[in-house]
């Protein structure tokens, strides 16, 4: 049984169809990446999985349960947590408070301090900035905070939406390293990226999204070697 299973998922914005019947699976323990151009529907897919965007068709299953109609906040309790596109750091809250927001839905409050330690070990920078307000962090720090905050929910599935967007190259490297590290610690990751080369290198499997449809899928290595992918997404002629 797959951890996450989307079957024939469609999403409409008004009369515009953003997703046209997407089917994908994420197995326990994997890093799966979803690559595609701007407007291909990557973020929409993430929002559909976390329940922010209602479906106009299809089903979503998580750990075998149908969560298609489950409220978004309850999906967090089930174990899906997301670092959203644009980071979504709460600008008026401190780093500490932002991280506490990540643990908002947690039932096992006792183990929250452990997760603080874990997040601060992954991102020592956040520990230094603990009492600084979110809105004053740099872009890279905000991205670390968004990922750390998502981890505070102790998710079974971590959704990362464009974690490298707008970051300086040394931060991008660091973020991708950490994605692998998080996965090695046992968290399944679904990663949306425009930085296809990095994403494909890190991922076990990948899907390619074009105008709301999945046009290709395979292991990261397979897609890295694929001629049409090279041309379209890796900038190799």
């Amino acid at each position: 049984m797959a951890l996450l299973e989307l079957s024939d998922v469609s999403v409409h914005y008004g009369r515009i169809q953003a997703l046209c019947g997407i089917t994908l699976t994420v197995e326990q323990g994997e890093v799966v990446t979803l690559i595609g151009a701007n407007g291909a529907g990557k973020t929409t897919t993430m929002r559909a999985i976390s329940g922010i965007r209602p479906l106009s068709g299809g089903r979503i299953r998580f750990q075998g349960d149908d969560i298609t109609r489950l409220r978004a906040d309850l999906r967090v309790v089930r174990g899906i947590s997301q670092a959203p596109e644009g980071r979504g750091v709460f600008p008026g809250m401190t780093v500490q408070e932002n991280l506490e927001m990540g643990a908002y839905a947690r039932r096992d409050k006792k183990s929250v301090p452990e997760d603080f330690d874990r997040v601060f070990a992954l991102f020592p920078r956040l520990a230094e900035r603990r009492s600084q307000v979110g809105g004053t962090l740099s872009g890279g720090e905000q991205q670390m905070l968004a990922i750390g905050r998502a981890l505070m929910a102790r998710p079974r599935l971590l959704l990362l939406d464009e974690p490298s967007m707008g970051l300086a190259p040394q931060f991008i490297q660091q973020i991708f390293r950490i994605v692998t590290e998080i996965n090695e610690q046992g968290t399944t990751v679904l990663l949306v990226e425009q930085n296809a080369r990095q994403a494909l290198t890190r991922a076990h499997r990948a899907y390619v999204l074009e105008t709301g449809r999945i046009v290709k899928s395979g292991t990261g290595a397979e897609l890295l070697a694929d001629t049409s992918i090279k041309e379209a997404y890796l900038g190799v002629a």
Partner: protein
Amino acid sequence: MHPLTTFLADAWINFDVGSLRDQFWSNTFDGLTYGAIYALVAMGYTLVYGVLNLINFAHSEVFIVGAYAVFFVLSGLGFGPSAPALSIGALVADLLLAMVAAMLVSAAVAVILERVAYRPLRRKGVPRLVFLITAIGASFTIQYLIFIWRGPSAEPAVIMFRPEAVFTVFGADIDDQQLTIVAAALVLMLVADVFVNRTRLGRGVRAVAQDPDTATLMGVNKERVIMLTFLMGGLLAGAASLFYVMKVPSGVQYSGGFILGIKAFAAAVLGGIGNIRGALLGGLLLGVVSNYGQTLLGASQWSDVVAFVVLVVVLMFRPTGILGESLGKARV
């Protein structure tokens, strides 16, 4: 004297600087008392605005139904047009009972209002203007429902106690009524502030105010947070209604919430709408300034004119209000 000034002075405006000087401190203390009431009501506007970006114009009616609850409870307990001869303990118990009743009634009306009028619109995702006109419609609906039920005239006065001077500061008396109102309002505002800034649920409220979608991704139930803000606003407005009846015993009337609501809204904007501490500051400032204006210009009608002129002038220089920004975004 310039002829225009003479004309204005003769015909219309008379700046009575002497009176203002003489009554400055008593105006200040009384203004703070009214200001505390404005501030409590302003909280309801500010909380709901912070979370929904909606100006809940029906909040003035949430407040006035509380005043009716105060009237009925106190009348039932035998209060009437003259102050009752009660021991201090019994009086406090009666007033607390009236306050709790008013808080519950106002909170219930606020929550029902949210359910009946606003939630269905939210589900449909209508434009913001629709919310605004719905709020105004809800305000009138509640007002005229009260009118149909109780008629056009004010309820008979219920006097809770006769204010007595407790001490004198700068030659002006401070009475026990003023002390009660200001102290109780400050305590309630402090509780609200601690709730929003220091508790888990309060953090959920701030999260929704700052970024509703991301708050949902953290597992915050947005609908519950919205209900909670209406509930809190209602509780505080209910408490305010007790102090209002204390100060204005004959003010329990179907339309009685209107002006007070507008002033409380102005207080919220003055302090920075969406900002809890701004509501307190704006309320106190508006209360004091209204009183000065009234004394300086010689008639109570001037009180609102001055209050709104001050509002406009402040907004010209600080369009987001004195403390600015909204609920959570304010960097405390």
